């Protein structure tokens, strides 16, 4: 456990050092990725394309996923 803590500490130091230029501090790779994900926006064109694709699908029974979603 001590060794693992030491490794994490070294990793955090490396991350902190390399991030000084961005003036941001992240405790771990996951925290950095979570920040990155939060900044990412899904292009609105995907929902538009999806709407068009779904509209072209053959009519499906209404109850199957309505029933699932409303459980």
């Amino acid at each position, binding site marked *: 456990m001590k060794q*693992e803590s030491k*490794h*994490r500490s*070294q*990793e*955090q130091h*490396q*991350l902190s*050092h*390399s*991030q000084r*230029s*961005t*003036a*941001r501090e992240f405790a*771990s*790779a*996951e*925290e*950095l*990725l*979570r*920040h*990155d*994900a*939060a*900044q*990412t*926006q*899904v*292009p*609105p*064109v*995907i*929902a*538009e*394309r*999806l*709407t068009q*694709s*779904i*509209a072209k*699908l053959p009519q*499906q029974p*209404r109850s*199957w*996923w*309505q029933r*699932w*979603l*409303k459980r």
Partner: protein
Amino acid sequence: MDSCVNEPATAATAAPNPLRSLPDGAEFAALYEEHSKAVYYLALRFLADPQKAEDVTHDVFLKVYRKLGEFRGESSLRTWLYRITINHCQNLKQSWSNRNIVTTADDTVWNTTAAPAESPLRALETKELGERIQKTLEALTEEYRLLLLLVADEELSYDEVAALTEQTADAVRGKLHRARKAFAVHFAKTA
């Protein structure tokens, strides 16, 4: 690809979701709004190609729309979505590999569009960070990249990450330790 970088920051939040215009669209639109960012982000950072990430996100949700009735609820919906996304991404990568295609998108495509409330200075910082994160992830093995991206999602447990990557939770913990270390080393090199 530029649309991903230069899209007006408010476009995503200002426009109503067109999925709501479909019959039964409200529920599906809500599902899309809750999970599309997770699917898109995983595809974006895993494939390193914004256009392909768009295609994957579209295809995943189209499949979900058609197959939701087959979802048995044995895993969380998020896990199910990730499983479809990972399979789709891996199939794409396999087809690129089979055709010996190397992605040649320029550096600007790694950028992340700034959130609406950010100042220009903050946006610049975000852009730089997005580029560095993408370069760092590309320097990792596919397994480490996927593990870090999945573990970064706080909605997933270690057991769920283990199931998605077809290994034990203990194996995930062990590899994650090495993945974090590799990430830190490569991230430092991008400075």
